[in-house]
């Protein structure tokens, strides 16, 4: 017979307001096996914890039921109290959720109190069946994997590597750096974006503890926190990087010169063997297999002829490797919404002078296709009137996405400032829904742009048409005055929405974590665990988690790195003891559990068992406690009922059901 103690928390008035906690304690005292029941104002406070510890000792309790907030909130805390301050095994504890699922959803004690009593009765019944559980030590592989080599991935990699742990960056493009090196200047300080991002890229390349795998993707992830076995496919680059010196001879001689440059957003061309931009890292070229004549038609071979080191290898193949990592950081970044597909009213991409914000960044950039002169893509003339349209795709559930992309108000103001700065006498009209500038020195920057003469008009552009004289006629509404506005613009810049990158869904399935409805990775808690995921050992950095600007991205990357370092510093971590367990005497060795296990944690083994005082050798199922995540799928599949889940055992759940049904 067990001696259960029931501790009912007031949680101030959070619980006590709609649940008569004393009545719950009174009722608990009548429940079977309950040796003590009492209440406390805040059970989670130091004073509440001491109260639990004292009563356990005083009444010689061997099971504990705490009726308080959700177990997702404080179960860990109370387990820690038992482990550190009492002799009780921390798994001899049940939490009855009488706050989130009772006091907060019911309006008065008439309803709340009986429900709380029911919930306590269920927990008491289950507690009686709880057994002692013991954790195991799992070794931690002291290496981290960063998926995505943009500024978030770079920052996290540098922080982790500087702490002394090896890091691998997996980047699917040909260079790390992401979008930041494409930008001209960064708000609000207007410092040169490439000047602050490319040194970080080279720092990564030079760092002895950082390995960079470009043109690579993660194919498979197995294992668990501390020990992820990750399969990475490194696509063929057709260039032997051990031999290549990055001299660039191949690039200058490649006859395929008309390929739109991704780095310049299609506003200039590149060759088939190429480095996207001079400061790319690794600073060696790759052959674009889709456009190389040698690889598509089997003739050309110019680059092989001119290469002084013989580094060109047309027979190169993809390399697939599997390595073990202790932690993974997802820094997969964002893409810009394809406005041409969605906004026919803006010309659907047919007007050359209606460009995206990122294209504008390349236009004003000194290393861009126009060497920093703002010129119209259509005829190369300088635009005198520019229209900026904000929220293209953002906050537009009808056509785009419902959320705000956060950075556009600021870079929209920056674009207006840059235009007026570079085009003397230029007129700039900014069409906006709201101006959102929360951030250090952000609003000051916006006000400055206003003072410089940018005309902010509250309303959206409903239509852009192109007149025969080349002017873009922008028709919109000024919702503050209620008038229809028509602007004859020379160029239009659309500040488009940030959306999750292609393949995010597949990656989420590969690494076994969740995406939110908008397609960004979901954090474990929106406020308190913003860089963790619900999967242990998997962390988030930058826009993989949601739209944000560079300062926030870098801050979050640092936070993710701190979490990773915290994990990798440990020699070992404690395993989850709530895993499946097979009763050898009942197991028939059918293997149903082997097939159903999503983690390949169950295997069939030959075991010598003692049956009826005889030794027999039989095939039985065995659970690898390191791999088992405790889902319990195997327990239901088990026909003889040999498999059970520790912490949620069959008897406990049955008793819990019964306690509610018969009460």
């Amino acid at each position, binding site marked *: 017979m067990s001696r259960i103690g029931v501790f009912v928390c007031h949680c101030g008035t959070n619980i006590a307001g709609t649940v008569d906690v004393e009545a719950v304690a009174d009722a608990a005292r009548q429940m079977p096996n309950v040796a003590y029941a009492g209440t406390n104002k805040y059970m989670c406070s130091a004073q509440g914890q001491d109260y639990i510890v004292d009563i356990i000792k005083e009444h010689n309790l061997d099971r504990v039921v705490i009726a308080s907030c959700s177990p997702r909130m404080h179960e860990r805390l109370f387990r820690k109290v038992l482990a550190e301050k009492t002799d009780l095994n921390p798994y001899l504890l049940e939490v009855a959720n009488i706050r989130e699922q009772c006091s907060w959803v019911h309006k008065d004690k008439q309803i709340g109190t009986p429900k709380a009593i029911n919930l306590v009765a269920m927990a008491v019944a289950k507690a009686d069946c709880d057994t002692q559980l013991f954790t195991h030590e799992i070794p931690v592989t002291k290496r981290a994997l960063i998926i995505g080599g943009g500024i978030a991935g770079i920052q996290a990699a540098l922080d982790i590597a500087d702490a002394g742990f090896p890091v691998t960056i997996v980047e699917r493009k040909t260079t790390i750096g992401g979008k930041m090196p494409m930008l001209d200047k960064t708000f609000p300080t207007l410092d040169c974006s490439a000047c602050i991002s490319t040194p970080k890229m080279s720092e990564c390349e030079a760092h002895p503890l950082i390995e960079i795998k470009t043109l690579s993707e993660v194919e498979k992830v197995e294992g668990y926190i501390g020990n992820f076995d990750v399969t990475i496919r490194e696509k063929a680059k057709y260039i032997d990087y051990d031999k290549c010196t990055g001299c660039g001879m191949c690039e200058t001689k490649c006859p395929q010169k008309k390929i739109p440059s991704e780095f310049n957003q299609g506003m200039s061309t590149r060759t088939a063997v190429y480095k996207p931009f001079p400061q790319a890292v690794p600073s060696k070229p790759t052959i674009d297999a889709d456009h190389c004549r040698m690889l598509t038609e089997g003739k050309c071979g110019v680059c092989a002829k001119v290469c002084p080191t013989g580094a060109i290898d047309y027979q190169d193949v993809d390399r697939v490797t599997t390595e073990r990592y202790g932690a993974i950081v997802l820094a997969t970044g964002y893409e810009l919404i394809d406005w041409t597909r969605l*906004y*026919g*009213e803006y*010309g*659907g991409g*047919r007007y050359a002078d209606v460009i995206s914000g990122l294209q504008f960044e390349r236009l004003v950039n000194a290393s861009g296709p126009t060497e920093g002169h703002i010129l119209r893509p259509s005829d190369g003339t300088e635009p005198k009137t520019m229209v900026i349209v904000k929220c293209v795709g953002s906050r537009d559930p009808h056509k785009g996405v419902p959320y705000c992309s956060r950075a556009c108000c600021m870079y929209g103001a920056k674009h207006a400032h840059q235009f007026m700065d570079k085009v003397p006498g230029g007129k700039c009209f900014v069409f906006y829904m709201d101006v959102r500038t929360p951030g250090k020195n952000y609003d000051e920057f916006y006000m400055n742009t206003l003072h410089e003469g940018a005309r902010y008009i509250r309303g959206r552009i409903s*239509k*852009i*048409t*192109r*007149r*025969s004289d080349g002017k873009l*006629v922008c028709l919109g509404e000024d919702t503050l005055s209620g008038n229809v506005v028509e602007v004859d613009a020379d160029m239009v810049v659309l500040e488009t929405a940030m959306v999750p990158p292609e393949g995010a869904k597949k990656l989420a399935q590969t690494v076994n974590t969740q995406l939110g409805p908008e397609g960004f990775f979901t954090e474990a808690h929106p406020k308190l665990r913003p860089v963790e995921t619900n999967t242990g050992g998997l962390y988030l950095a930058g826009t993989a988690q949601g739209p944000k600007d560079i300062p926030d991205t870098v801050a979050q990357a640092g936070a993710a790195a701190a979490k990773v370092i915290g994990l990798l510093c440990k020699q070992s971590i404690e395993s989850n003891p709530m895993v499946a367990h097979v009763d050898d005497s009942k197991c028939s060795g059918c293997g149903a559990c082997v097939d159903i296990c999503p983690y390949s944690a169950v295997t069939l083994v030959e075991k010598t068992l003692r049956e009826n005082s005889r030794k027999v050798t039989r095939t039985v199922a065995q659970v690898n406690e390191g791999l088992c995540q405790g889902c319990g799928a195997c327990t239901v599949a088990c026909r003889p009922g040999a498999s059970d889940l520790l912490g949620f055992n069959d008897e406990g759940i049955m008793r819990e059901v019964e306690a509610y049904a018969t009460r």
Partner: protein
Amino acid sequence: MRYANFPGCSASTTGKAYTESFSYVARHAGIEIDEVPDWNCCGASAGRLQSDDLGDALPARSLANAEAAFGDEPVLALCAGCYSNLRRALVHARESEDRRRQIEALIGQPYEAKADVVCGIDPFLEPEVAQTVKARVTQPLNGLKVACYYGCALVRPRALTTFDDEEDPQSMEAVVKLTGAEPVEWGSKTECCGASHHVSNPTAMKPLVERILADAIDAGAEAIATACPLCNMNLDMREAEINKARAARGEAPLDIPVYFFAQLLASAMGASDAEAGITRNFVPGSSLLAEAKTREVVVELTPEQKKAARIAAAKKQAAARKAAQAAAAAAPAQGKEEAHE
């Protein structure tokens, strides 16, 4: 393809030319047309304003009749107003089973909402039909610059009309291209023509028509194509009036004929002006088409074709060079041999 045609009130009145030209094209392009039995008003002008029930029941009754007679054969509505109203009833019935049952109760007959409702452009988006039309174009409108005008009801609201982008439709362009004409890109293809104020407030309507005509001319168009009897009438009939006002203001006239897209198809397929209903146009439209048919065809080579031509020329040149070299080499050798002897 077979369609159940819903003529609506405009088929034999304002849209007579549309009916005539469409029938001509259909006859020659293998489009078979049935007529919806016992059809009634689609409710365009007042039905929906009266009540939502009337707005759904009026078109649904005709659709139910079509379904009873022809099953899931698509219902064809040439008039954009009819198209919009029939689609509204269809979409409402498909959206909600409850609404479908209510509609059935209102019209007192079964209506499964199985048959689709399509507009006049839709049949030509079928690849087979487009191919047939292309093959039957005997008098191509070589390079005639056409501004395709959709107006409002064909493409909006998006929830009702599904056949093309509501802001930047392209399907009429594809159909007009079959005739050898060249559609122009322009900005006013979905702007309002003001037809609703045709009678009640012509002062509000005229600047709208004027803008559309001016935009089309500015974009380099020689003709406007429409797919709605009301738009067509409004643009075509008001042009003279607008030009008179422009003349009074000392402005140049906006001189551009307005056709139904089916008229262009019919004419290119060899229909006489009378067969294509072109004689009914307010702005005379015969001479422009006749002139276009006499234009010289400029064949634009694709980049691949150009490349192939270049390569062929280079090969020919190389072969000639080789032959000349061989001949040159052979001649002195022969001479030497002779000398040696």
